[in-house]
């Protein structure tokens, strides 16, 4: 339930033991290797670069396998299971390398075929405009005639072409074969003597000569041949694409190999962080204090020289928080803000109940809460997620449960679905109030007061944590001055509601205490007084903090009222459309309000709650481990 105490580890081993040591540490997964003072040798970098290359090849092979295979591997299929030994075996790696090489080879063949296809397609485009020409493309010239293929810009009108040709020679005839947006395609036949002159005339119009030297067939025949070629290439492509397809087993191998290579990279990086000399290997790192005994035994057995020490002044140990199963999903929310500093305090145990509470109040719909819970449970059961996604799904279950509770208290079940359906099918108003406590839509003032009271509770809780930290550090007088006197002020303000006179006295006493103590850091007596007086201005801060909790009311109203709007629209459209409007409308409402409730609950923690005490800026503990993103490691005795 707190931040785990860390120990500094320094260790010497023989250089030849380095790999064995690091593999062992990766297996144990409790030591974070930190950079030793002097850097490793360059030779190591080459090794991890090669591993990096292998990794990127495996990943790209995975993606081309996914693209071309109809792998029956949905979201719900389980990860491959294997033991750690199997994962790190050289067989797996060489098998994966074989698969990768095969896929890459086929991929290369495929890209050659793609290039061929586009070459043919481009060629076909050059013949297409001449398709209607009945004579071979390279008809050439005879004794008295000469033929030419020309293109003329399409802005030139056909009659202008005819005029230009007529101007050049009376023994010449142009035929426009086809036209597109840019060009007319022209077949010109003329008397041998005049041919050059006619071409000159046309060139003045912007025409250009086209030559298909040696093509003694018509364009249509040429296109037919190309189409046949294209078909053949297409078939080859289809075949090649099917060739790339891999079996599920092969694909799983690739996934596992990715984990294996990433694990090896982690070990190689760790080796670089240590110092290797001709004979010895030196390593520095951090481990949780509770693992010290176990690690000592391991090191003792292997004959390494080691030392555990408490973090020295100025050293920054990594942060690892240890919480119960119910609280630990909330670590994610804190880590989004920033992990706690090692010397700070773990905010999760006190933050978690508030987060779940506020989320539930903001979403406040039993129906939505049930859906959220079931979605979370289903994902946890079927996907067996890990890491952040797992925490997220656990949060969905916990916050969903809170939403169900508040939905029941406030009478929200898919908005006012039950009364609406009752009205729709019986034509009568629903006679009961579903809210177990009260309905915020009908009684917003009660809800507003409730929201602000909850806000006050969290602010006081935040101050209490701060006070605890101060007392822990031996600053109990500061705790009394900075927290205690404010509490007296708050107490006075609350007492005012019941007994104005008494309340005012209490409030004044608290304020006096603040005036007398808040300037204690200043040297000058006048400055002490003014600093103390000025500190009363902080009341505005507490005031706006508490008002900020009015969003609990606003967001719970937003869910409820939009839900009611959807139901009312459903009732207006009648029984048939009701279900359609109901489903689409509520899905929309869930989506929008889920985001809103999450973000705003988080904001209340980050700004209003953490602002009171939280020391952020820690670095998360990242031990050297076997990476198993894609695989499930089967535990075995060692």
């Amino acid at each position: 339930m707190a931040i785990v105490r860390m120990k500094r580890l320094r260790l010497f081993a023989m250089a030849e033991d380095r790999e064995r040591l690091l593999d062992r540490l990766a297996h144990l997964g409790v030591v974070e290797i930190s950079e030793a003072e002097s850097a490793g040798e360059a030779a190591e970098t080459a090794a991890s670069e090669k591993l990096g290359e292998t990794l990127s090849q495996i990943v790209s092979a995975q993606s081309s396998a996914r693209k071309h295979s109809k792998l029956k591997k949905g979201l719900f299929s389980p990860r491959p299971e294997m033991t750690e030994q199997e994962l790190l075996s050289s067989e797996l790696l060489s098998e994966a390398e074989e698969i990768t090489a095969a896929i890459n080879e086929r991929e290369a063949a495929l890209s050659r075929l793609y290039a061929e296809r586009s070459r043919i397609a481009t060629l076909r485009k050059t013949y297409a405009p001449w398709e209607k020409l009945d004579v071979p493309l390279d008809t050439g010239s005879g004794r008295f005639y000469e033929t030419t293929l020309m293109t003329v810009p399409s802005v030139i009108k056909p009659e202008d072409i005819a005029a230009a040709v007529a101007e050049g020679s009376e023994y010449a005839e142009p035929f426009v074969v086809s036209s597109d947006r840019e060009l007319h395609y022209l077949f010109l036949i003329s008397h041998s003597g005049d041919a050059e002159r006619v071409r000159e005339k046309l060139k003045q119009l912007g025409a250009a000569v086209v030559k298909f030297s040696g093509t003694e067939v018509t364009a249509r025949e040429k296109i037919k041949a190309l189409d046949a070629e294209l078909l053949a290439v297409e078939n080859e492509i289809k075949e090649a694409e099917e060739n790339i397809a891999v079996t599920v087993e092969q694909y799983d191998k690739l996934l596992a190999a990715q984990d294996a290579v990433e694990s090896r990279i982690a070990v190689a990086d760790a080796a670089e962080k240590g110092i290797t000399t001709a004979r010895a290997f030196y390593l520095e790192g951090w481990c949780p204090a509770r693992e010290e005994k176990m690690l000592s035994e391991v090191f003792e057995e292997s004959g390494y020289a080691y030392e555990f020490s408490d973090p020295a002044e100025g050293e920054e140990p990594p942060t690892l928080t240890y919480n119960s199963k119910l609280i630990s999903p909330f670590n994610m929310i804190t880590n989004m803000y920033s992990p706690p500093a090692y010397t700070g305090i773990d905010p999760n145990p006190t933050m978690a109940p508030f987060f779940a509470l506020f989320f539930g109040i903001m979403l406040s719909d039993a129906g939505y809460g049930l859906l959220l819970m079931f979605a979370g449970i289903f994902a946890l059961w079927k996907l067996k997620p890990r890491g952040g996604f797992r925490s997220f799904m656990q949060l969905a279950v916990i916050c969903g449960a809170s939403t169900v509770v508040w939905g029941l208290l406030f009478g929200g079940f898919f908005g006012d679905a039950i009364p609406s359906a009752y009205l729709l099918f019986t034509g009568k108003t629903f006679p009961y109030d579903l809210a177990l406590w009260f309905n915020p839509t009908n009684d917003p003032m009660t809800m507003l007061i409730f929201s602000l009271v909850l806000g006050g509770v969290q602010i006081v809780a935040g101050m209490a944590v701060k006070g605890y930290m101060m007392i822990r550090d031996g600053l109990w007088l500061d705790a009394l001055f900075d927290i205690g006197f404010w509490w007296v002020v708050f107490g006075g303000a609350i007492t005012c509601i019941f007994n104005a006179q008494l309340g005012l006295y209490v409030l004044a006493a608290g304020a006096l205490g603040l005036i007398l103590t808040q300037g204690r850091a200043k040297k000058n007596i006048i400055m002490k007084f003014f600093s103390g007086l000025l500190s009363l201005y902080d009341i505005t801060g507490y005031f706006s903090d508490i008002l900020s909790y009015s969003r609990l009311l606003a967001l719970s109203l937003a869910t409820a009222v939009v839900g009611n709007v959807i139901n009312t629209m459903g009732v207006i459209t009648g029984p048939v459309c009701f279900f359609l409007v109901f489903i689409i409308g509520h899905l929309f409402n869930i989506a929008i309000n889920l985001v809103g409730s999450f973000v705003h609950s988080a904001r209340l923690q980050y700004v209003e709650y953490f602002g009171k005490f939280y020391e952020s800026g820690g670095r998360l503990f990242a031990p050297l481990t076997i990476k198993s993103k894609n695989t499930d490691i089967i535990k075995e005795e060692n």
Partner: protein
Amino acid sequence: MEFGLALALLGAALATFLPGMGSAKGVGLVGKAASGVIAEDPSKFGQTLLLQALPATQGIYGLLIAFLVLLKVGMVGGDGAVEVSLLTGVYILLACLPIAVVGYFSAFHQGSVAAAGVGVVAKRPEEVSKAMIYAAMVETYAVLALLVSFLMLNGVSL
């Protein structure tokens, strides 16, 4: 009498179209920024969509108030239009103003912040939640305006 109803409807119209315009603008801004990221990496669609949804809420808050007005004057549900006095009409119109005006401006600014957050998704997708919190800070004022509009409207009795 008729004029009172007209003012109430004007309030509902303002509460719908001003925040609606703001949200459309905000959502549009984020969408434009997000498309650039998606062109590079389509797998970031989900994250950018979350950011895009943030400035959409003002439009919904406006709709919520408008709907409550329509419910109050009997245009939706109930047994047809009720009589709205001139003064009541003015009250209802005034009650609509906070969400109408603040909704418009906050949606626009929230959109700009969320659009900048799209840049965070492009470079450091793991930090998307921080960008979301920044955008949510802007929304606070729309939430407060919604609250005041709701309380005002709730206080008006016909």
